[in-house]
């Protein structure tokens, strides 16, 4: 499981952002490291800085404090190597879908993958529907077609896009497809996707997830997806960042994060000595989520929490200490040796000293 040698896709040190017209920091002292090749879910409630973090990583705004590094360099220098899809999926409304894809091709002449872009935009049925007169696999620059062909209902499913459709006439989900097509067509090493699923119907969502997983498996693309719907990304991601209070509060492999926590049920009694993330009692019965790799055995019923339980417990208790199952790299310090020695054991946070374990996992985080 140790993939520390793979390089770093995204890294922040002491990152902070405050907007001039708003009080307080949106991000504050945010540090984390995302190894390359991961599919990372960035979750957290609305307004906790997910979009700001992604915009900073995409080099669209400047941090107030700290630094963010993308693919080992500054966002500005990595511009050609990552893709970013904003939450609002902005696209020029006056263009057709075909012209929008050509825009992507023109702005990324060195690396544009036309076939992939068109597959994402028009769906997997597209090539069959329109045939070779449009499906140029050589990746050459597409003509600015205003096609209005109708391939018939058998080949293209309901709501599918056609090259001649104007962006302004599209629904939210259809715009998302075009925005994602621009991201995929770039053949990026890193995809920063802000709420990519929000407007998609279940079918399109499955299709997108399949495309993302395929891209990651085939090209080793790192994917960061933000969402405020936790369940949406469960089982898909192999890395998780929980945002809250303007920083990353939980970071790492979801399995290890789960393994570091135990759900206790039993008669109410003193839990001091344990890191209690959340506890609530009903009468004499107490239910608590504690952070430990050695669950107490004295009369407690123990269970593995689900990912949702784990995240909700942390959201309800902002005082719970942060936890990273992999140590964020120290910036500009020669000393690489973390407390775990980097031998394959998951790292620990200084805040809690809790060591995660990879042995036991809850049934909720079994991946497909």
């Amino acid at each position, binding site marked *: 499981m140790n993939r520390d040698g793979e390089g770093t896709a995204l890294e922040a040190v002491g990152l902070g952002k405050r907007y001039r017209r708003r009080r307080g920091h949106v991000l504050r002292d945010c540090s984390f490291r995302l190894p390359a090749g991961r599919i990372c879910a960035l979750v957290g409630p609305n307004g906790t800085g997910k979009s700001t973090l992604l915009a900073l990583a995409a080099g669209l705004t400047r941090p107030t404090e700290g630094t963010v590094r993308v693919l080992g360099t500054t966002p500005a220098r990595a511009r050609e190597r990552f893709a970013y899809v904003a939450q609002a999926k902005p696209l020029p409304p*006056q263009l057709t879908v075909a012209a929008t894809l050509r825009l992507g091709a023109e702005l990324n002449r060195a690396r544009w993958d036309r076939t992939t872009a068109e597959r994402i935009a028009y769906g997997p049925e597209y090539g069959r529907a329109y045939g070779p007169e449009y499906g140029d696999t050589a990746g050459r620059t597409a003509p600015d077609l205003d096609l209005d062909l109708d391939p018939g209902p058998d080949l293209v499913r309901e709501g599918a896009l056609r090259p001649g459709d104007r962006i302004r006439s599209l629904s939210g989900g259809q715009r998302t497809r075009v925005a994602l097509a621009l991201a995929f067509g770039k053949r990026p090493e890193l995809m920063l996707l802000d709420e990519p699923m929000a407007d998609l119907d279940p079918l399109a969502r499955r299709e997108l997830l399949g495309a993302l997983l395929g891209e990651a498996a085939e090209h080793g693309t790192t994917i960061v997806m933000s969402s405020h719907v936790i369940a949406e990304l469960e089982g898909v991601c192999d890395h998780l960042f929980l945002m809250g209070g303007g920083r990353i509060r939980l970071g790492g492999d979801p399995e290890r994060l789960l393994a570091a926590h135990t759900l206790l049920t039993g008669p109410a009694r003193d839990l001091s000595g344990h890191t209690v993330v959340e506890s609530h009692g009903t009468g004499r019965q107490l239910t608590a989520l504690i952070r430990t790799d050695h669950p107490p055995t004295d009369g407690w019923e123990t269970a593995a929490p689900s990912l949702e339980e784990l995240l909700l417990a942390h959201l309800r208790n902002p005082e719970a200490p942060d936890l990273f199952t992999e140590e964020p790299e120290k910036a500009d310090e020669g000393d690489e040796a973390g407390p775990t020695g980097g031998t394959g054991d998951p790292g620990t946070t200084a805040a809690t000293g809790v060591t995660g374990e990879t042995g036991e996992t809850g049934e909720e985080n079994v991946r497909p």
Partner: protein
Amino acid sequence: MNTGQLSRAGLPFRAGLPLNTGLPWTVLRLHRAALIVWGVFLLAALGTLVWEVEITADAVRERISACAGTGGLCRLRVAIDYGGTISWVSTLVYYSFFAVAAFAAGALVGRELENGTAELAWTQSVSPTRWLAAKLAVPALLLVAGGTVFVLVFRWAWTANRDLMGDDWTFDDVFAARGPALVAYGLCGLGVGALAGVVVRRSLPAVAVACGAMYLVNHNLEVHREDLWPKVGDGVRPESHYWPMHLVETGIVLGVAVVATGVAFWALRRRTG
């Protein structure tokens, strides 16, 4: 490495605009409607001038000779028809810098920053600096080319039938439209509009700011044109002063254009990093 970054900071012209990238295509495609409107406007203006000089002028002379017995009023009315049309063309083209400023502040820059399509370009491998450079360079080239053609045609049309026109070289629109000041005002509108768009980041307020700023620049220069070059003796203004006065005004307007453009780049870089 660092010095390279610094030298690029405020200087749009070093940002580089490699024509082998798809950026010029992108700018033309995104603003195709504006390009068509501008092209039609310019062609209509040029066509009107040629039509007036080549076709209407002869008819006007015939009508004037038909006035023979009826006195000066008839003659005057016919001449106003001819001179008035040419005057309208120069007025519209001269003040079209307001439209340029509104376009630059609104559609070109402000709207794209407002709705996020600028950020789309910035994450499609185009740095904000190169994006703005392309956004300004393509319209600037068109304005220079189109403006130059118009100035040459207008100079020809204005001198063709002086006896049929009631204006003279000191009229505001005639003064500007007979030389490079016309092009300079267009470029100034572009620069000021871009600055307003970058700073305000919302299209409608940016349009208002840009047009207001252009009014201040233009109005003050029109009011103080007399002071741009010293008069002869006891307040006489010979026509030979046209070029010195015109070039001083052109220089001032171009100066405003360069400063506004530079500040627009600086502001954009400062925000985006």
